[in-house]
């Protein structure tokens, strides 16, 4: 494949038709243009498409959580409140500043405390593609300033040599005494493909590096996915998918509450068309619906003044139409129409002894309807330059659907009658040389806006354990904007590739909560009330460096460094900005076995926000050792993998870990798979 063509593919972030290299069944009679499927267990990570080998590396083990993969993505960090459900952060931006989508579907968490980022619903063995796009490049999935995380689930394989394929595995980790079992099956006929995917996890409270057992860090989770693909004819197919996720008894040591249960139901039905000729190359339309029910309680916690329940619901329904056009040989267009509606409600009920229960809506029946148009052009604008231009316009209407919810906010002087409209334009421009050379540069400019989140607009006394304040929304919040620049330099040799990216964001009207001394806190023990508002501006500056080098035939080194600086208009640090982090991996690979050592390290974070509950986080350095061996018997194989994480049993935590709860100490793990 020509390098320029490769570049085109990478920019699109999808593997379009005709890419025979991705065909999982070479030689099979199905037309390759109806196959956009990769190997069952291959995870393609496309945040840095020029370094595709990165994915294999960070696919540390089939049983690792999707979060473990996210943490190893360039530009990505995780905010940690428990041993499960970590929240992604891209270049210092998170929550409503970024968009997380599953198979193109909008889905929003049901927890007011961000315990359930939607990334938890796609298990690594069901993940085909994890795509992180930074800044306005991520606008395909929604109006954004920070970027996008797109999780694509595994497709059923169509028309393979064998009707049945699958994999069964089990694993154990010592630090949390946790068991993880998984399976996936694929059944295929000429026109039909069916895939079943299941994971069950059970984990006890883990042991940290200092020998201490972290109470309330247990979790239990089952995830079941089923998808069906039916080829209507040579050009088109139907896809239906169901994803069910059930979690119970999930501890969140950094929060005052745990999760009694969390339940997600995700449904999608898509039609895909691959016209044989004409300018339209690909069309996909999809209708979807998902709902999440989340129940937080503190009944397991000792010394609680008043016990409380905090259930939350989030329902999203939507539809989109996605098209890809080849205008001319070097000019491609992608157009997308998006529509979705999300309804959330969260309640808090306190049960004082011998008194009437106390009730409020922490998310007061908020509904948001969004309609959007997205256009992306990519093409050679001169013999030497390639332009990538994207634009998106979102129109978002937010309202409170219940009188109870409106009455609550009326107390604070906000009359939230009718719809609140936000118009969100996003523009992204990228330039790069059309031909690939040893040295290559890339320049990106972007402008984007995002609507304030439900919590930021309507949140009602949401207690934040990190700073100890109750948070109140501000219904009159405007959009948050970002002007951004990115420059990167890429160097490629036969032995490897290196990329350096620099970015800068100027964020006018940045949304940050501030203390309102006139208001009294609701939560017992809270320090006061913060109300979301705009600060004049904020700035983000940072860099990422990745390298992948091979030495001889057996050795490979993959390294990455990521760094972000953030400050507000008073030159104070922004909260939740990680310090410089480095992840280095050295692998020795033989055909049947491999051995690798990893180093994870971060500098101390001395730029922190005390008024947001942060403190100085010490530097750390930890090592992991991993190995694997596999036996092949014709079409079947057995794989044994294992390792030791945090080899030196360091007591450590990262800056984005809430309230300095140490991470797991020395952890021995072992996984066994049978593949057929």
């Amino acid at each position, binding site marked *: 494949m020509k390098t320029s063509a490769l570049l085109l593919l990478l920019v699109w972030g999808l593997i379009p038709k005709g890419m025979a290299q991705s065909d999982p069944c070479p030689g099979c009679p199905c037309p390759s243009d109806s196959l956009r499927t990769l190997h069952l267990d291959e995870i393609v990570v496309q945040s840095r498409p020029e370094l595709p080998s990165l994915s294999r590396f960070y696919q540390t083990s089939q049983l690792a959580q999707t979060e473990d993969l996210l943490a190893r993505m360039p530009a990505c960090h995780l905010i940690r409140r428990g041993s499960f459900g970590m929240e992604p952060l891209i270049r210092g931006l998170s929550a409503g500043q970024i968009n997380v989508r599953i198979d193109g579907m909008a889905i929003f968490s049901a927890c007011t405390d961000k315990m359930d980022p939607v990334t938890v619903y796609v298990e690594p063995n069901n993940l085909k593609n994890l795509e992180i796009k930074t800044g306005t490049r991520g606008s395909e999935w929604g109006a954004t300033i920070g970027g996008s995380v797109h999780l694509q689930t595994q497709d059923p394989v169509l028309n393979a040599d064998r009707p049945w394929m699958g994999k069964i595995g089990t694993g154990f980790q010592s630090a949390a005494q946790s068991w993880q079992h998984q399976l996936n099956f694929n059944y295929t006929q000429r026109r039909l493909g069916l895939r079943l995917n299941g994971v069950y996890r059970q984990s006890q409270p883990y042991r940290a590096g200092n020998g201490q057992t972290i109470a309330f860090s247990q979790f239990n989770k089952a995830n079941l996915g089923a998808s069906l693909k039916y080829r*209507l004819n040579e050009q088109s197919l139907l896809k239906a998918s169901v994803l069910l996720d059930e979690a119970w008894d999930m501890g969140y040591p950094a929060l005052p509450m745990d999760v009694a249960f969390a339940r997600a139901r995700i449904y999608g039905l898509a039609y895909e068309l691959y016209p044989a000729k004409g300018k339209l190359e690909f069309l996909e339309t999809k209708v979807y619906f998902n709902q999440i029910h989340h129940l937080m309680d503190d009944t397991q916690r000792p010394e609680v003044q008043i016990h409380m329940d905090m259930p939350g619901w989030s329902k999203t329904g939507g539809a989109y139409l996605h098209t890809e056009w080849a205008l001319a040989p070097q000019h491609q267009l992608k157009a997308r129409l998006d529509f979705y509606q999300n309804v959330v409600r969260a309640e808090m009920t306190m049960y004082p002894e011998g008194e009437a229960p106390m009730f409020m809506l922490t998310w007061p029946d908020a509904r948001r309807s969004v309609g959007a148009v997205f256009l992306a052009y990519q093409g050679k604008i001169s013999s030497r330059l390639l332009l990538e231009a994207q634009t998106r316009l979102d129109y978002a209407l937010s309202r409170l659907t219940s009188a*109870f919810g409106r009455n609550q906010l009326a*107390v604070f002087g906000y009359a939230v009658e009718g719809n609140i409209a936000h118009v969100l334009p996003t523009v992204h421009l990228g330039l790069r040389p059309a031909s690939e050379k040893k040295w290559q540069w890339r320049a990106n400019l972007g402008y984007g806006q995002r609507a304030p989140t439900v919590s930021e607009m309507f949140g009602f006394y949401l207690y934040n354990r990190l700073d100890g304040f109750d948070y109140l929304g501000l219904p009159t919040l405007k959009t948050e904007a970002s002007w951004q620049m990115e420059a990167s330099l890429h160097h490629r040799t036969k032995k490897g590739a290196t990329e350096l990216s620099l970015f800068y964001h100027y964020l006018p009207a940045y949304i940050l909560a501030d203390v309102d001394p006139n208001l009294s806190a609701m939560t017992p023990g809270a320090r006061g009330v913060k109300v979301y508002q705009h600060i004049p501006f904020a700035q983000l500056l940072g860099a990422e460096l990745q390298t992948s080098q091979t030495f001889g035939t057996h050795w490979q080194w993959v390294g990455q460094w990521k760094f972000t600086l953030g400050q507000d208009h008073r030159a104070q640090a922004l909260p939740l900005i990680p310090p410089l982090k480095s992840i280095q991996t050295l692998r020795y690979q033989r055909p049947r076995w491999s051995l690798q050592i990893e180093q994870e390290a971060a500098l101390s974070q001395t730029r922190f926000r005390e008024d947001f509950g942060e403190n100085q986080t010490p530097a750390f350095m930890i090592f992991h050792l991993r190995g694997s061996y596999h036996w092949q018997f014709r079409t079947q194989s057995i794989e044994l993998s294992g390792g030791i994480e945090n080899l030196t049993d360091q007591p450590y935590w990262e800056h984005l870990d809430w309230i300095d709860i140490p991470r797991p100490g020395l952890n021995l793990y072992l996984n066994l798979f049978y593949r057929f």
Partner: protein
Amino acid sequence: MKPSFLFFFIMLLMGLWACQNQEETPAPNPLEGLTKIVSAEATTLGLQVALWGEASPSVGYQELYFSVTDDEGKAAREVRVSITPMMQMMAHAHSCPYEALASDRPAINLFRFGMAFMMPSGDMGSWYIDVEVKDLATQASETVRLPLEVTAPAEARLKSFESAIDASKIFVSIAAPKRPSVGINDFEIVIHRRNTMMDFPAVEDFTVEITPEMPTMGHGSPNNVNPVHQQNGHYRGKVNFTMTGLWRLHLVIKKGGVVVKDDLFFDMTF
């Protein structure tokens, strides 16, 4: 399936989501929401006198309605009504604060009064209301007696105390909110003074400060409006509740800047 069909499907879905809820308004009925508490016949006038209320009478301020009708339940003749609520106790009898109010319902011969019962019926004594009905055409009048049962509500809606200024007996009763709810509530209190056992004039020159609190959690609510005197001892303001549960409304009552009572409170659980 053709793409056009899917398009149609999507459009249909979009249309469904765009639908708005609509609320209905009920048709008016003069006795809507009222229940008959007691009735008696004015025999010489040949009229039925009935007492109506939103709830059964209880200690505190409430609005009660008197209807005067013929046997068929129609407002036959134009009449005027005056009342005297009385509590008969062992050794003595006393009245309570009451006031005639302009009618707020579309019906003839339906008379509205405000009344603040200060004690419940029981072993201590019993309540009745003497209703004098005067036929405006014939000028004939007749008094009927309506006995009634006054109960004590779970949470006091009326409290009495001696003024710190002149030791006079003061009655403060909550007129609104009748049913407190989360959000902004109209807040209304009525203040009376005991002049004699039969005379309870309205107090019109007090200032009142309110502070709601959730005693269980120790927090309050913002943007409350202190009640200000309107007329006939009625003070109106706003009280805000941010959640359900037990709320305690602290009242500080002053006259000309001098404290009359500073530790008065009412509990409201909803």
